[in-house]
């Protein structure tokens, strides 16, 4: 992982009762350029480290903006942002990485957002408008709770925006996916349930997988405390209930490559030789799970873990 970037919080806005927008400015030179769909990792003073999509204009390298939803079962990351983070605070971030890029050859881009899943689509819209590319945004939310940026998007997109204010109006995937031209690509960001429905519906309508792109906004969830042993560095670590295994490793100075910190990118794959694992990722195949785990989300349970680290 190349160097972390020191930033200062320059603005905090309550966008909805459960969503806060945070603006970050570099303390040094300009921030790195990025492509639409990129995320950054934010290192909070309480030791928590989460990935958030960038929602600012990719051309703006003076500020980054992210939006954080207050999670009920927060391990302390989103709670910290909502309850403690102040304008003027200094944080560190990892440089942007893109696990959810635009498909440059699509003839029509169909964007599906649910709730806080709107964030990667904010720069998508800016970028697609700039390119003059055909696209439409389907946005499902709960009015006055998770309806971030609806007014702004309506101004920006006009007829390209389709709103689904649940429970009054539901997003009908079959309707959205039917009778689309061959070069259409669909992008979805939302809870795992939406993504599963999308894949199922798309498959039954004959869409090939290569035209479907999705990003789950999963992050580590808390669980039971457990302990691990590291084979090569001969260390023993205790992982607390609201800490991820990856965070515990990092706190002990063991660097493991990682990007999404949500169990999807595959970067943090780590071998284990003994122990019981509660697998919580969306990356490993059932076979691979016998010898590998994703420490960003998965946890030990039962027999103590011995990691190949």
């Amino acid at each position, binding site marked *: 992982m190349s160097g972390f970037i020191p930033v200062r919080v320059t603005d905090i806005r309550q966008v909805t009762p459960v969503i806060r927008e945070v603006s970050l400015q570099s303390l040094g030179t300009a921030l790195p*350029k990025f492509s639409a769909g990129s995320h950054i990792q934010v290192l909070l003073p309480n030791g928590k480290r989460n990935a958030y999509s960038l929602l600012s204009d990719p051309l703006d390298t003076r500020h980054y903006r992210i939006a954080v939803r207050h999670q009920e079962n927060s391990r302390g990351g989103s709670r910290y942002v909502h309850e403690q983070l102040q304008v003027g605070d200094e944080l560190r971030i990892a440089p942007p990485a893109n696990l959810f890029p635009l498909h440059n*050859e699509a003839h029509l881009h169909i964007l599906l957002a649910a709730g806080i899943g709107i964030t990667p689509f904010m720069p998508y819209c800016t970028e697609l408008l700039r390119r003059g590319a055909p696209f439409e945004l389907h946005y499902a939310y709960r009015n006055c709770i998770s309806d971030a940026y609806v007014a702004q998007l309506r101004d920006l997109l006009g007829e390209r925006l389709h709103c689904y204010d649940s429970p009054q109006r539901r997003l009908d995937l079959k309707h959205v996916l039917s009778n689309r031209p061959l070069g259409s690509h669909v992008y979805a960001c939302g809870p795992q349930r939406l993504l599963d429905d999308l894949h199922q519906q798309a498959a039954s309508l004959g869409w090939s997988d290569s035209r479907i792109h999705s990003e789950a906004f999963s992050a580590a969830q808390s669980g039971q405390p457990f302990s691990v042993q590291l084979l090569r560095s001969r260390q023993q670590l205790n992982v607390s209930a609201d800490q991820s295994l990856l965070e515990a490793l990092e706190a002990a100075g063991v660097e493991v490559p990682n990007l999404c910190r949500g169990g999807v990118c595959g970067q943090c794959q780590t071998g284990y030789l003994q122990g019981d694992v509660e697998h919580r990722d969306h990356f490993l195949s059932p076979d691979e799970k016998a010898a590998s785990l994703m420490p960003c989300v998965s946890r030990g349970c039962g027999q103590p873990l011995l990691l190949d680290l």
Partner: protein
Amino acid sequence: MSLTFKPVGSYHQDFSFRNSEEAIQRFPFPFPEDQYMYSVNLEPATSRNPGSIFEHCFDIDEHYRSEMVERNRVLERDPRRCLVMPHMQTAAWDTLAMLMEHLSQDYPQWFALSRDGDQWQWQNHALGIDQRFTYGDADTLPCEPLEYIGRQVQGDFALLDQREGDLFMDAGIVTCPADWSLAFDAGMSFKQWHSPVPMAHQMGVFDRALKYLVNIQVGQPVRRLNWTLTINPRLDTSPETFHEWGSDRASITPGNVGSLVHLRVELQVMARLPRSNALMFSIRTYLISMDELVTQPAWAQRLHRVLRDLPDAIADYKGMTLYRQTLVDWLSQFDSQA
């Protein structure tokens, strides 16, 4: 180390290209062992060994002016050596920005960049260029952005669009290829354009390499060395001009092998372009004649052993079968154990 440029030498007809003593010293001799086998020899492209070709991301050396003259000559004859598909415009501008930023930072005595929003000014003292333009507006440059910057930087550039977990060669400026053609490979996927390479497919080299490449992140470029042999210091060995150089291979004799046969080493750097998410594949070529190479005894001995023991399929692919024995015999005089 201060960088100075040699008077223009040529890479065709009279082949007046020569390396200075310093250029020989910093030549990237590519063999870490006495044997050669394919491997995914990728490493992080971090700066090391000041003065070496690994110091800067984009190496400029004494042949800068000669190579830019050669680039112009080849492009004039065949404009299709530069190609940018419509969806690669952002990647082309990304490339221009990355190259201008690096060159002005790494070689401030030769290049300068000043920016005010999208109003940019670029100065190239080596070629006497002072250009103001609007970033993102190709009409404010004398030509398309990739061609514009490509005519001012040594090495070839392929820009790979990343989609569906694969890489596609959808743009590039390629005037000094080691027997491959941008026009032919345009639009191809990673495995398609590598299909002629023998043995490596079976070894799974390309599967592993592709997985690695699609995961390269902004600010974390990687590099590797590749090599082949070329007759004469000819940079443009492309299929399009095969009729001009193909028969050279039959002309090697014990008397001319030292001056005609050149080791050709490519420094390949792969970097993620930040705005487009495309992958830049830069191929910087270094040439050294056998006469120049054997001034370094350790290199001469090792090259003898590598070429003597090279599997035939690889020798064939690299086009050296016709003169390999002549070369190995000649090199054996520098190998104490031969």
